[in-house]
């Protein structure tokens, strides 16, 4: 009758399952990253306008993609967690947030590293960089809210709601920033990828994006395992696990 008790016990079954999946995703990420790096550095041709500096896009663009994908995935897990009152989904949302924030930060830093040689300025208020900056604020807000609420159940649900509010707002924010950008800067700066991109360049970017994606899965699983351990530290199965591992 009490289905809820099953849900409460599910972290226990998920913990070893995640442990088994992590090595697979890790190695897949390594292989994809190797292939991606090989294509980006050895095969992709030099860009005739930007020289070799354009190779930054092989991390910048995938990182920017991931930052958005992770936010959407986070909101998705949050919605599932809220709707079904499933603890594991909320934990997944929580586990994704720091990785998303790191990718957002990487997109920002690599964007400005790309901007400096191209436009001679470390920071330009271009629509994509500005949106990434706001996305970083959204991630930070989510993490700050979760960490300042002591009761994990309330933290899960409040964070989930915030993620949903954020995901509704992201398109509006993006649109408004674009609007603002075209008004104030005209079309002088466009950080979009060059229109005539060689197929190998696209391949490199896709491979790197896939590598990041798989890496995200692996890291999120690792973090969700940590969260499970921390939350369930007083349960018997975790105690058994921790002492059994020692002996």
């Amino acid at each position: 009758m009490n289905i809820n008790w099953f849900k409460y016990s599910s972290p226990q079954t998920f913990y070893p399952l995640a442990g088994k999946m992590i090595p697979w995703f890790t190695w897949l990420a390594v292989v994809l990253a190797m292939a991606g790096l090989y294509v980006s550095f050895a095969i992709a041709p030099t860009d005739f306008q930007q020289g070799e500096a354009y190779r930054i896009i092989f991390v910048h663009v995938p990182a920017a993609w991931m930052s958005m994908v992770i936010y959407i995935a986070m909101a998705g897990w949050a919605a599932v967690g809220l709707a079904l009152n499933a603890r594991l989904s909320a934990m997944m949302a929580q586990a994704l947030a720091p990785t998303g924030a790191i990718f957002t930060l990487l997109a920002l830093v690599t964007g400005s590293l790309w901007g400096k040689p191209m436009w001679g300025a470390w920071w330009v208020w271009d629509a994509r960089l500005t949106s990434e900056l706001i996305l970083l604020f959204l991630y930070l807000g989510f993490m700050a809210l979760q960490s300042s609420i002591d009761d994990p159940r309330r933290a899960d649900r409040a964070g989930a709601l915030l993620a949903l509010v954020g995901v509704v707002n992201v398109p509006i924010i993006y649109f408004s920033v674009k609007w603002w950008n075209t008004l104030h800067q005209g079309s002088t700066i466009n950080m979009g990828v060059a229109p005539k991109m060689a197929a190998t360049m696209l391949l490199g970017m896709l491979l790197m994006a896939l590598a990041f994606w798989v890496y995200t899965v692996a890291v999120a699983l690792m973090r969700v395992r940590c969260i499970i351990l921390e939350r369930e530290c007083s349960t018997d199965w975790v105690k058994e696990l921790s002492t059994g591992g020692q002996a």
Partner: protein
Amino acid sequence: MQWASWSAFFNMGGYAFYVWFSFGLTALCVVWEVLALRKRSQQALRLSQLLAQN
């Protein structure tokens, strides 16, 4: 192959700092995140071990 020599590869057409910094930082973030998580899970296990002993 795109590169005449290793030094040309490392030089990145004069953009060495920007390119290598970008990739280096990304690698650093990845390594740091994995190590930090490993440490975090060990700490969590140690905590519950302490709880189990008491």
